[in-house]
């Protein structure tokens, strides 16, 4: 059975801090790993990672995948209150169909 564990489950930091969110996974036929940000309803897409060791970057957010150790991290530098959200990771096992297996998410709160 596919398994995804995110840590920490919740995190409270002050504006300007840097945070690192963790995602470890066990899936069969791994194709990619996706990160989403969920503020109220719709998870919004952040990154798709397919190759180990190649950092993907978007503004203050970056993410990297380690396919050997089966984990990914999401970094957010110079956090802002607008970064407050639940961050979800989901490995994609592909194989002709791609129902995502999500972790419980990390609830990040940025205090002004």
């Amino acid at each position, binding site marked *: 059975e596919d398994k995804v564990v995110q840590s920490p489950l919740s995190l409270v930091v002050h504006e300007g801090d840097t945070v690192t969110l963790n995602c470890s996974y066990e899936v069969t036929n791994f*194709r990619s790993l996706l990160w989403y940000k969920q503020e109220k309803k719709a*998870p919004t*897409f952040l990154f798709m990672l*397919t190759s180990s060791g190649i950092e993907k970057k978007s503004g203050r957010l970056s993410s990297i995948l380690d396919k050997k150790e089966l984990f990914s991290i999401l970094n957010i530098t110079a956090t802002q209150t607008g970064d407050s959200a639940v961050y979800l990771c989901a490995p994609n*096992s592909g194989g002709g*169909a*791609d129902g*995502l297996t*999500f972790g419980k998410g990390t609830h990040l709160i940025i205090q002004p």
Partner: protein
Amino acid sequence: DAGVTQSPTHLIKTRGQQVTLRCSPKSGHDTVSWYQQALGQGPQFIFQYYEEEERQRGNFPDRFSGHQFPNYSSELNVNALLLGDSALYLCASSSGLAGGGETQYFGPGTRLLVL
């Protein structure tokens, strides 16, 4: 370019009733996946539709069924509602051409409350 749309936004039903939720995929996408998200949990995969057929199914009972239309829009039906079916139902669309592994884009969801 319209993203993924879902209707209705909120719904209140009573136990034993049936409900139908609707989803229109992002323009250019042909694959629709449905997820159930209980409070405080990550989304759980229900099933995926491609070319009007159920291509993959998660661990959900037969009370959950779906349909995809020729225009790629989709419906999720839940029969004999239970209190535990109260959740946010999310629809995600993607392109099925690559055979899996594509990025899924989510709609705003339908909040279902079963009393």
